[in-house]
């Protein structure tokens, strides 16, 4: 049996009378590449917010590895290996990519609270940060303030910041959001290059990309999981076609 990296069981969340997450149970095995799809407003980002602790569920349980993390604060979840990226760039506009990623690396290494040591003395952290940036082809841009980077580079930096936390489970919220189709290939090449030890759950609207990268697909509609299966099963599923693919996406 495969090892489960992240699972939720019976996760519920309501905003007033609107159900944004209804009885969500899913399992993400180690090293998996899962896609989370669904029409706008289906509750995909909300699910990521619930998993990472940025929202508290009304009921249900979230398990990371073998540990119940339902009540664990967001930053501690990150330390334990559950890391996310954001659909809308959530970066540090006036820090350089090198500084930003070094910060994340320092934090993971438990050095970021140190105020008596000079930053350059954290050589290992700086080298590691530069390594991550280079692997995403951001090496030569790492000295410019983030706000001056091209949009596509900022999307890559989103991923670089997440990788700096050495995730076991990585939740990518539309990594290619807003990137022109011809450039999104490069972003997903970066996603494909992520170590196979890391379990990845990604939200994406482009079906071509989903079918290319995902080993399994979870379809959400109106805050609930409609169906889960391999790409072939999803493509053949009548209900999915009706509610989601029916409008000519494939």
């Amino acid at each position, binding site marked *: 049996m495969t090892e489960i990296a992240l699972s939720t069981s019976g996760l519920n969340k309501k905003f007033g009378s609107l159900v944004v997450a209804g009885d969500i149970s899913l399992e993400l095995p180690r090293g998996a590449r899962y896609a989370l799809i669904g029409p706008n407003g289906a509750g995909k980002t909300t699910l990521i917010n619930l998993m990472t602790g940025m929202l508290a569920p009304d009921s249900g349980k979230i398990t990371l590895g073998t540990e119940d993390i339902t009540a664990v*604060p967001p*930053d501690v979840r990150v330390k334990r290996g559950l890391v996310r990226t954001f659909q809308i760039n959530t970066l*540090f506009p006036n820090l350089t990519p090198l500084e930003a990623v070094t910060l994340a690396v*320092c934090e993971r290494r438990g050095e970021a609270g140190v*105020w*008596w040591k000079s*930053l350059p003395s954290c050589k290992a952290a700086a080298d590691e940060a530069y390594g991550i940036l280079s692997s995403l082809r951001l090496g030569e841009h790492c000295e410019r303030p983030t706000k001056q980077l091209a949009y596509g580079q900022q999307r890559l930096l989103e991923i670089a910041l997440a990788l700096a936390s050495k995730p076991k489970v990585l939740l990518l919220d539309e990594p290619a959001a807003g990137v022109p189709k011809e450039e999104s290939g490069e972003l997903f090449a970066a996603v494909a290059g992520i170590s196979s030890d890391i379990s990845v759950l990604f939200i994406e609207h482009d079906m071509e990309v989903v079918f290319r990268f995902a080993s399994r697909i979870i379809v959400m509609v109106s805050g609930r999981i409609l169906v889960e299966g391999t790409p072939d099963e999803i493509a053949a599923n009548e209900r999915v076609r009706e509610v989601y693919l029916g409008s000519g996406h494939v």
Partner: protein
Amino acid sequence: MNAQTPGAAFNPQEVLRAQVRWRALEIIFWVATLAPFVLTPNYLILCSQIAIAALFALSLDLLVGYSGIVSLGHAVYFGVGAYSAGLLAKHGWGEPISGLLFASVVTALVGYLISFIMVRITHFALIMVTVGLCLLFGEIANSLHDVTGGDDGLQGVKMWSIFGIYRFDMFGRTAYVYTLVATFLSFLVLRRIINSPFGLSLRGMRENQRRMPAIGVPMKSRLQVVYVISACFAGLAGALSAQTTQFVALDALSFQRSAEVLVMLILGGAGRLYGGLIGAAMFMVARDQLADMNPQYWYFWLGLLLVIVIIFLPNGILGGLAALIDRVRSRRS
């Protein structure tokens, strides 16, 4: 753009080091602080007040400029530091250096207690609570008339000589040396803090509070640490003020004092290390001159200064200069 010679292997450590290296201008700046001994020996008392204000502004910069947290009540810490140092000396222990340490520890403790409140709130409520706390402390000091002297101020503060040798003289020579050394040493510590991994995480909080938990940063405890450090140095500034003037006025805790230090910081440029220092110098000199002309209307000039800086120089004088230099450079290349 790249600081390295082309072809050489990229060394990220060097890039970070280049940012924290001492610059020639910095050294010139600190040497220049010695000039008043020779050039304006009659203004040494004003000079020590400038040094104290500069330290106070620097402590606030850690919060406002680097961490992006608003405080309209920073005088609380200045006042607590001033009263602790003043009361200690008044009640029989007039040794200055241990007095400074005592006052900064007391203030750090107060800062620690207050930090539990501060990390729970943001935005408008935070502004209000900082104002409220400032007024609250002012009222407490006012109503404890027997201890603090209330409106009349704390009198009878008797300081001993520094190391038992250097007396505080009436020309303020000793006082200026003393405050300058204390401010410079504090500056060194604060500079190191700002250039540390912790300092980087402060800037991270300023830049994006939402991302920080997502890279694993425990925001609340990090914020508590910065509140304590900031309070500690503000308290130190207050203690210096109490010791060198041998008096604590009730307005050490006032909202006006809080507003003034913000003005100095914003005037010089927040988040730039030297902004608070330069702002404090300009502010104190301007007040000295303008208040001499017409003390009652000083607030008019202060207000006008604020409006002008906010509208025309949003990043302060240093920010304006930096932008100017950038423009000249890019025109040349």
